[in-house]
């Protein structure tokens, strides 16, 4: 592949963004859609020929990058399809400028081979996140935008630090980011590893740098939430992590275990927070964090099967999470609220959206035969494979992480039961008349739902054999292949279908149906008799140990940003107290400073 061809991925969307500034909105939409479709086509054609062989110093694409690039294009195209109708009027123009721009930045990150370029695009994609956050309409939007910007921007500092430590000693034209194979045991590289880990975790939303995700999800336009934290940022963050674990570093066992533990902890902490949310967006935001944990576990463990599972989970997650966010978006656009207490019983009026959301919810909870199950299953198997060979202590450690991961998926299921119940099932509060979402919206979610099903049912035949195995071979882990291919979701579905068909057949043979109101002990079906489901997990919240943790989480003790800002204010307040404006005091400071300086020099000498 010629490097100039790669430039299309950068300049075409950027140019479209500039043109969109001047076009009427309708034309801008059409132009963006056409561009993205073309880029998708380019990404597909790029896939077979992706290799680093012929790339330039600055841009280059290997299998992993091409793989991620492909999904970045698919997701952004589908989300654009969703955004064609329904974006708020006042931000529509700006939205369609920002959208291709974001795609361009994201593609830039994936295609840069040179560290400086990588850094610039990484930073720019963070800026676009900030700009999207500013488009939110409620009062929290600007606070969320600030929080996002500070966390993402702060992590960029670590990225710079890490990159400098890695390659700073080399000439500029050798600042490549592939096949460094450094050992993080050396203190310098260890620091570099940690810095890069922080950057990737902040981007992907891993613990403890995840807190911007739910805030961003709560207040930004829902399309941008589906685009960035749910899809592109996940792709970028895990892409960096995968790079780190394979080509940048050669990591030892303890480091792997630490990364796996971070993953496990991310899963369980975020999903616990998700359980107790009352707002659909925030809940999905926390899930966007929790699911990152599986990818971190898979990619971080270094086991080929788990690594492949982690990559697979990454694309699966982008698919079903975008699907869920977009479905919630449809609901929100029809009803005007994403609070669980205001919703309910929408499955009747929005059946298509309900089916898509159901598929998404089952997929994210890891219910066979959908895609989420298959990748989780690969990760678990890989982790167990790894555990088998470890010494006893590590074995237990790994098993604990595994338990957290499996239990995390039960908790995920639980919170999605709440989601489905509160939004689509249960009983309508009777406050709004709701219609099905417009065609572009359910078409977009429909494509994603179908992808969920296809990637689950034909997991081995399609995504694994066609996409992930080549990536694994390219990364030097061809043995991932030999584990795949024993579980046949299709066979299971076939068996299921036979019995289900028999049951339904019997039902249709003997049934006599009558329609009636709900039975409430003789009381009429009044809309006030309903359970919103938003308090489903109150008992969990009030468990003796958990209640303290939840109380602490409510006070944002676990939030790096909030604690940081508190600390900063406290520190600056303390500094202000040292500046009363008295001249003698300042003179005293100067003398004290000189004294200390002298002491230091003396000791040093």
């Amino acid at each position, binding site marked *: 592949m010629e490097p100039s061809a790669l430039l299309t991925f950068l300049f075409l969307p950027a140019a479209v963004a500039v043109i969109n500034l001047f076009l009427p909105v309708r034309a801008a939409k059409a132009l963006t859609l056409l561009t993205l479709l073309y880029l998708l086509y380019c990404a597909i054609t790029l896939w077979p020929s992706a290799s680093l062989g012929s790339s330039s110093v600055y841009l280059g694409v290997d299998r992993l990058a091409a793989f991620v690039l492909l999904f970045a294009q698919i997701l952004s195209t589908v989300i654009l399809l969703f955004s064609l109708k329904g974006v708020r009027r006042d931000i529509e123009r700006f939205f369609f400028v920002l959208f291709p721009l974001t795609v361009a930045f994201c593609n830039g990150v994936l295609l840069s081979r040179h560290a400086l370029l990588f850094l610039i695009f990484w930073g720019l994609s963070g800026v676009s996140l900030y700009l999207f956050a500013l488009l939110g309409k409620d009062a929290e939007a600007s606070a969320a935008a600030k929080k996002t910007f500070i966390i993402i921007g702060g992590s960029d500092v670590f990225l710079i630090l890490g990159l400098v430590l890695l390659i700073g000693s080399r000439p500029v034209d050798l600042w490549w980011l592939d096949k460094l194979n450094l050992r993080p045991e050396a203190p310098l590289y260890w620091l570099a590893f940690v810095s890069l880990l922080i950057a990737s975790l902040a981007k992907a939303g891993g613990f403890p740098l995840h807190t911007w995700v739910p805030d961003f999800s709560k207040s930004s336009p829902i399309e941008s939430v589906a685009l960035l934290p749910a899809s592109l940022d996940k792709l970028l963050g895990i892409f960096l992590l995968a790079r780190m674990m394979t080509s940048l570093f050669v990591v030892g066992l303890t480091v792997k275990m630490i990364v796996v533990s971070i993953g496990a902890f991310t899963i369980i902490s975020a999903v616990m927070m998700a359980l107790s949310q009352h707002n659909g967006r925030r809940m999905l935001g926390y899930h966007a964090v929790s699911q990152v944990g599986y990818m971190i576990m898979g990619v971080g463990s270094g086991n080929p099967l788990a690594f492949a599972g982690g990559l697979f989970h990454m694309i699966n997650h982008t698919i079903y999470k975008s699907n869920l966010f977009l479905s919630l978006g449809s609901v929100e656009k029809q009803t005007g609220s994403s609070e669980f207490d205001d919703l309910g019983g929408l499955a009747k009026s929005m059946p298509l959206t309900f089916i898509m959301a159901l598929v998404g919810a089952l997929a994210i909870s890891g219910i066979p035969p959908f895609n989420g199950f298959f990748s989780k299953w690969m990760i678990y*198997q890989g982790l167990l494979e790894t555990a088998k060979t470890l010494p006893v202590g590590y074995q237990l450690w790994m098993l604990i992480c595994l338990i957290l991961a499996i239990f995390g998926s039960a908790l995920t299921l639980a919170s999605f039961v709440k989601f*489905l119940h509160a939004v689509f099932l249960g009983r309508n509060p009777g406050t709004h008349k709701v219609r099905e979402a417009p065609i572009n919206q359910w078409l977009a979610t429909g494509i994603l739902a179908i992808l969920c099903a296809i990637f689950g049912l034909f997991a081995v035949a399609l995504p694994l054999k066609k996409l992930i195995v080549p990536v694994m071979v390219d990364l030097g882990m061809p043995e991932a292949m030999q584990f795949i291919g024993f579980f046949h979701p299709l066979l*299971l579905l076939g068996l299921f279908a036979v019995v289900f068909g028999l*049951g339904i057949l019997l039902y249709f043979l003997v049934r006599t149906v*009558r329609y009636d109101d709900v*039975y409430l002990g003789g009381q009429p079906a009044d809309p006030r008799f309903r359970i919103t489901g938003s308090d489903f997990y109150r008992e969990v919240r009030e468990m003796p140990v958990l209640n303290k943790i939840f109380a602490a989480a409510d006070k944002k003790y676990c939030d790096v940003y909030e604690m940081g800002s508190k600390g900063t204010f406290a520190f600056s307040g303390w500094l202000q107290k040292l500046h009363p404006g008295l001249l003698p005091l300042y003179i005293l400071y100067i003398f004290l400073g000189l004294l200390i300086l002298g002491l230091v020099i003396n000791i040093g000498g």
Partner: protein
Amino acid sequence: MSLQMVFYLLVFPGLLFTAVLGLSIGWLDRKLSARFQYRVGPPFLQNFYDFIKLLGKETIVVRDSVHSLFIAAPFVAFAMLVCISTLIGVALFYKQGFLGDLFVLMYLLMIYSIALILGGSATGNVYSSLGAGREIKMLLADELAFILICLVAIVKAGYEIGLAEIAAVQQARGAFIASPSGIIAFLIGLICIQAKMALPPFNIAEAETEIVEGPLMEYSGPPLAFWYLNHFMMFTIYPFLLILLFWGGFSANGLGILWFSLKYLLIVVVMIILKNTNPRVRIDSALRFFWRIAFPISFIALVLAVLGV
């Protein structure tokens, strides 16, 4: 799908066998419970009569519910249970399986709860909603301990993640139940399946006197018949799973069959005794019990298993 597979699915370890054995064991449950309470109890065919009678009744569908989901839920759960029983049965009786089928099974077992919850909340009835909430909380409660005991079996089998392999290891090296970790895991497993089958004291989700049978409240006619059947089918699935994981599986000679039946009956009888000697616990007590008592104990079992004890 070969003819043999259809036989597996519909006749022997699958549909017919599970249903008939389940309904018969369901009679044992009712009869023994009755004897506990100084009553006579129903005749042997009572569960079959009940099932047939429900098939002939009228189906009432709640007007503003999600009709298709409401009707499909029991059949989804039914089909899933048949698939699960086929999986377990094939591993148990034919020693076949695929790699990692235990994980698949753990997730498939959740589908029953999901179907129950979705079917119940599709009606919009408050009691069904409450029951759905309770059902999922029960799932959370017992799932943690259940994962642990599955892992104990996996670890003890030398990290084999297949049902058939776990059984084969036990056939070769003796049942896990003979070791300390195995017996702890088995006992915790017994309580877990009590909770998974929603038998008292864990019938919180379907508590009749509190929330009017919860998610099943609005069901009538054939769908109810299938929920009824599902409930009794679990009487075969879970004890079989427990035997497979910890109690040495099944060997196909005369004594083996007798021995297997005795093990199975023993587990069922213990479950019935548990059922009849305890009041229904509250949902938060159940959560607390499983998370603060059953979880640490099963964790000890896991540690012991890793240490090879």
